[in-house]
């Protein structure tokens, strides 16, 4: 398993938006990779840069005002940040496809579901209209839309949110991409269909060896679907590791806060835990750890220096000074604080 090559390798990626108020660094120096055939989960606070990261991979950052200001994105070894728009059009849909967070914005309200699905096939694959139609119906059925033939002639507004999302997944999968980026693919869906969709994605992952980058805020979904997890906060990766390790031993105080905020269906709490404070405005924190202002463990150093990612175990790393092993006393501190909370 460890011998699999990364399909996607992102290094030092920086993306900024240039607005009236100046530069907004939405993604600030992030590293991660997706190995062939694996399911990687990306979780993090709303606005932390997850969608911007995936749009960068797709070459879809609106420019202006957006711009990739540094770093590299390698898909099967090919550098994408410098690829031409023509090349990117070829890559999109064929090698990497994306399911968007808001299906209504990516489905054209003026065209039928059928024509949009067929277009997706016709653009990339050889084959005539008849084959494209057959494939479109096949895909609609594959994602659990029973009345596929009827749906071909319907318009996006006639579908429920969940049905639209399944159409999006069908559209993303028509060309058998190597990497599927799914940005909150199941947030609009109820759980039984979510379970079906996640199972469907897992099946596509296993049978077709499609690597999946799954962006979600649902830690339950991550726990059930992903092998590895990247936790992002304010444009940075703050923790990454195997899903089992992250849930068993969440290290970054932010990750711990996230896990505690989940309403547990199995019993009712009067009040949910919530991390105090708000996400900082991108670029507003000039020095120190970006989570420091909201962190109950923060100490002087956190306000002064930007913590690096510390490797805390095999395949598990955390961007937090509590895990700086070079200092005996901090290490000691860490053990007691974390254990008692």
């Amino acid at each position: 398993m460890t011998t699999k090559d990364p399909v996607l390798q992102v290094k030092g990626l920086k993306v900024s938006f240039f607005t009236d108020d100046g530069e907004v660094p939405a993604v600030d120096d992030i590293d991660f990779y997706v190995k062939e055939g694996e399911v990687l989960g990306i979780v993090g606070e709303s606005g932390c840069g997850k969608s911007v990261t995936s749009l960068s991979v797709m070459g879809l950052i609106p420019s202006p005002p957006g711009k990739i200001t540094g770093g590299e994105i390698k898909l099967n070894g090919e550098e994408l940040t410098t690829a031409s728009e023509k090349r990117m059009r070829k890559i999109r849909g064929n090698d990497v496809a994306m399911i968007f967070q808001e299906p209504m914005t990516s489905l054209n309200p003026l065209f039928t579901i059928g024509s949009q699905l067929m277009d997706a096939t016709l653009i990339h694959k050889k084959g005539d209209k008849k084959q494209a139609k057959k494939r479109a119906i096949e895909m609609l059925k594959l994602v659990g839309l029973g009345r596929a033939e009827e749906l071909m002639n319907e318009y996006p507004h006639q579908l429920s949110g969940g049905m639209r999302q399944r159409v999006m997944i069908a559209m993303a999968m028509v060309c058998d991409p190597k990497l599927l980026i799914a940005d909150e693919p199941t947030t609009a869906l109820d759980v039984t269909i979510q379970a079906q969709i996640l199972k469907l994605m897992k099946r596509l992952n296993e049978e077709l060896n499609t690597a999946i980058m799954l962006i979600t805020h649902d830690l339950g979904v991550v726990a059930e679907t992903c092998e590895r997890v990247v936790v992002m906060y304010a444009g940075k990766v703050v923790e990454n590791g195997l899903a089992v390790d992250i849930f068993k031993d969440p290290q970054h105080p932010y990750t711990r806060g996230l896990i505690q905020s989940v309403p547990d269906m199995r019993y009712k709490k009067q009040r949910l835990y919530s991390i105090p404070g708000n996400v900082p405005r991108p670029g507003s924190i000039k020095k120190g750890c970006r989570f420091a202002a909201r962190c109950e463990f923060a100490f002087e150093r956190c306000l002064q220096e930007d913590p690096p990612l510390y490797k805390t175990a095999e395949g598990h790393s955390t961007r937090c000074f509590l895990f700086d092993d070079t200092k005996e006393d901090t290490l000691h501190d860490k053990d007691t604080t974390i254990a008692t909370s």
Partner: protein
Amino acid sequence: MTKTQPLLQVENLKKHFPVRGGVLGKQVGNVKAVDGVSFTVNKGETLGIVGESGCGKSTTGRMLLRLIESTEGKVVFDGKEVTALSQNELRKLRRDMQMVFQDPFASLNPRHTVGKILEEPLKVHGIGSSAERKKRVKELLETVGLSSYHAKRYPHQFSGGQRQRIGIARALMTRPKLIIADEPVSALDVSIQSQVLNLMQDLQKEFGLTYIVIAHDLGVVRHISDRVGVMYLGKMVELTTSEKLYDKPLHPYTQALLSAVPVPDPLFKKDSIVLQGDIPSPSNPPPGCTFHTRCPFKMDVCEKKVPQMLEHEEGHYAACHLYTEEKQGASQNKEMVGGGAV
């Protein structure tokens, strides 16, 4: 106790959308998006509505506000029959009844600044001076965890979660009595989600707000709701307090729903009831109980007779033949089913 006085009464509400086909676009059938839903909501309570994608939750929510007109049925809000109001009266009523929409992007005007979007409902209802309105915009941006500088920005400059908070702030602007929140936190990550849920609860206590919360996340629904209604294919199939629903779900669909909730623990092995088959088309719903095509406990009667919503225990309603007298024989099933969830 004022809590038991119904603020909203919904009776046999239906929405059938015409299905058009052929070259002439003639009506060839109906999508029975909502097909006879009844419930009440008491003052100060939160009613959760959950159910399969496409089962008619949003359509139900929109009909309550008459954002779409119902085909049949009656909605009574605060003693007024909403379904019979003139457009003018309806506009006044909307001050007391607000909606938070499912798709935060589609519901915010992209050409307006957030400040303008938030001020709009106050202007429409002629509330406050310009300065007062601006002040309230700032106040509410902060209440929902944004900052006053965001008022100058446009919707596309926000992330999905941030946009949803703008939608919530907008609904709160006129200090309504009832808020219908359609998936209010589904676009939010858990930490903001818990803030928004706590915020909704605080506002409820402070202003005596009443909520209808439509959501697919059963953890969220359980947390925030006093009672929960479960919908399937345009119908309500179970309705009870959130404790009873989670402790002892009666309808097999509810049981499957509960068991499909993902648990944030990769090592947790759960007994999920995997539903077979597709959701039937609402333009051609199965006869009898509409769930029979996917139900693991289907009996002969289920294909023929529509089960009525009956009170099986105090305050616990379900529409399922497994629990009707004529089907005493099936009662052993019940125990087995009840234990299967989660």
